[in-house]
C-alpha cells in the first residue's frame, strides 16, 4: 500500500513538473475524442435512419383493371423475399387520397369515376432489403400477368449508407490524426518529464528502486492525461447534446424519421475513457521505452 501511495505521489510530482505540456496533451486528446465523437454520432444517426428506412422499404405493384388481384396476392405471398404482402383495392386507394388531400377533398368530387388502380404493397424480408434484391424482385413482380407498373425506392437508402460510411471514415481520419498528435504530445510531455527527473531516476536506481517504480509514474501520467482528456471530450459532447439535441430533433424527425437524438450512451462514455487511458498510456510508453534505459 505504501508503495502504491509512493507511486501516486511520484505521479503527481511528474504531472506538476510537466506543466503546460500536460495541459496541451489533455486538450489535444479532448479535441481528438470530441471530433471522433461528433462524427460517430452523425454516422450513427444516418445508420439509424438507414436501418429505419430499410425496414420500411417497399415495392408497390399497380394492377390493371382486369388483373386477378387475389391470385396475384397469393402468388407473391409464397415468395421468400416477401415478408408481407397487402392488397390495396381501388376504393382503399381513393380513400387514402382523400385522407392526404384533407380539406381539399372536394376536388375528388368532380371525377367521373375512380381513376386509381388497385395495387399490391410488398414488404421485403430483411435479407432482401438491398438495392440489387429489390431491383430483381421488382422485375419479377413486373413480369406477372396483370401488373401494370412497379415502383420501388432503394437507392436513397443506399445513399444514406454511403454518407454514413464517408462520415465514419472522415471522422476516424480526422480523429485518428488528432489522436496521433495527442499521443505524440503525451510522448513529448513524458520525455520532458524523464529529462527533468533524470538525476532523480539515477538516484532511485542506485538506492534499489525497481524499474516499475521508476517508470510507473510516467505511464500513469500519460494515462491520467488521456483520461482527463476523455472526460473533457465527454463534457463537450454532453454540452453539445444539451444545446443541440432540442434543436435537431424536429429536423431529424422530419427528414429522417428519427425521434430521439442521443449523443452518447453510457457504453460510449466508458469506451471513450478507456480509449483515453490507452492513448495516454501508449504515448508515455513510447517515451519511457525510448528514453529510460538504465
Amino acid at each position, binding site marked *: 500500500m*505504501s508503495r502504491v501511495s*509512493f507511486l501516486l505521489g511520484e505521479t503527481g510530482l511528474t504531472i506538476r513538473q510537466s506543466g503546460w505540456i500536460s495541459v496541451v496533451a489533455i486538450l489535444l486528446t479532448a479535441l481528438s475524442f470530441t471530433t471522433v465523437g461528433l462524427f460517430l454520432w452523425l454516422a450513427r444517426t444516418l445508420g439509424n435512419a438507414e436501418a429505419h428506412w430499410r425496414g420500411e422499404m417497399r415495392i408497390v405493384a399497380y394492377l390493371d383493371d382486369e388483373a386477378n388481384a387475389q391470385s396475384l396476392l397469393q402468388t407473391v405471398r409464397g415468395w421468400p423475399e416477401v415478408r408481407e404482402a397487402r392488397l390495396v383495392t381501388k376504393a382503399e386507394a381513393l380513400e387514402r387520397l382523400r385522407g392526404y388531400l384533407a380539406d381539399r377533398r372536394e376536388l375528388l368530387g368532380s371525377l367521373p369515376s375512380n381513376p386509381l388502380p388497385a395495387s399490391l404493397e410488398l414488404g421485403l424480408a430483411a435479407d432482401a432489403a438491398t438495392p440489387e434484391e429489390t431491383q430483381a424482385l421488382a422485375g419479377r413482380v413486373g413480369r406477372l400477368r396483370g401488373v401494370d407498373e412497379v415502383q420501388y425506392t432503394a437507392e436513397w437508402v443506399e445513399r444514406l449508407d454511403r454518407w454514413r460510411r464517408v462520415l465514419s471514415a472522415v471522422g476516424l481520419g480526422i480523429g485518428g490524426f488528432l489522436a496521433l498528435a495527442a499521443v505524440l504530445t503525451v510522448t513529448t510531455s513524458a520525455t520532458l518529464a524523464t529529462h527533468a527527473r533524470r*538525476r532523480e531516476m*539515477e538516484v*532511485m536506481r542506485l538506492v*534499489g528502486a525497481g*524499474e516499475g517504480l521508476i517508470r510507473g509514474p510516467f505511464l500513469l501520467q500519460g494515462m491520467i492525461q488521456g483520461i482527463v482528456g476523455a472526460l473533457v471530450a465527454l463534457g463537450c459532447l454532453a454540452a453539445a447534446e444539451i444545446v443541440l439535441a432540442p434543436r435537431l430533433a424536429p429536423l431529424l424527425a422530419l427528414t429522417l424519421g428519427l425521434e430521439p437524438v442521443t449523443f452518447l450512451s453510457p457504453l460510449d462514455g466508458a469506451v471513450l475513457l478507456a480509449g483515453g487511458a490507452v492513448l495516454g498510456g501508449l504515448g508515455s510508453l513510447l517515451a519511457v521505452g525510448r528514453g529510460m534505459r538504465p
Partner: protein
Amino acid sequence: MIEFEHVSKVYASTVSAEGVQALDDVTFMIQKAEFVFVVGPSGAGKSTLLRLLVREEVPTEGEIRVGGKNLLRLRRRSITRLRRLIGVIFQDGRLLPDRTVFDNVALVLRVRGAARDDVRWRTQQALRAVGLLPKEGAYPRALSGGERQRVAIARALVREPVLLLADEPTGDLDDESAGEIMELFKVVNTRGTTVVVATHEQGLAARMRQRTIQLMAGRVVKDSGGAV
C-alpha cells in the same frame, strides 16, 4: 564479500582513440565486515571502483564478485536487489533539490515499500545520528556543503546496508565533523557492515588504522591488508 579480479576499466574518449584508462588490472579481495580505505589522488580511479561495485558501470576486462555473485552476469532485477543491500554516499551527494532533507533520506525506504511509521522512525533515527534532525524540513539548497554530505550519509545508512560505499564522504567537512562521521562508520562497521571509503586524504586513513588500498593511475600500488 568483494572480489576484484584483474579488473580494468577504459572510458571512451573523444580525445584519444584508446580511451581513458580509469582502472588497470586491479585485483583485491575484501572480507565481510572489513573496513577498508581506498586512497589515491584525484583521477586515481577511486570513484570508478565504487561505480563498478554498484553496477553503475561495467568493467572493460576482469570480473567483480559481490557476495559471490558475478556482477556482469546479473540481470536487471538482481542488480536492483543487490543495490538494496548497498548504501552509497556519492562524492557530489546526489541529493534531490526539490525534496526536503527528510524526503531525501526517506526515499530509500519508500522505494522498498516500507510502512509510513517505519519510514518516519528510521529516517529520524538516521538524521539524528548525523545531527541533522532539526533540519529535516529544509531543502538541500538551504544547507551547507557539510550538511548536504551528512544528509547523503544518513540516506546511505538509513537502510542498515550490508555494504557501505562512501566516495569522499568527508570532502566538505571540517576535521571535527569528519572525525564524527568516521566514528559513525566505525559503529556501523562493528554491527557487521562492510565499509569501503574512497578518499584522497591519506592522513584520514592513517588515523583510522584500517586496511588501505592505494591506487595510482588506475593501478593498485599498495594494499596494507593483502599482497599486491
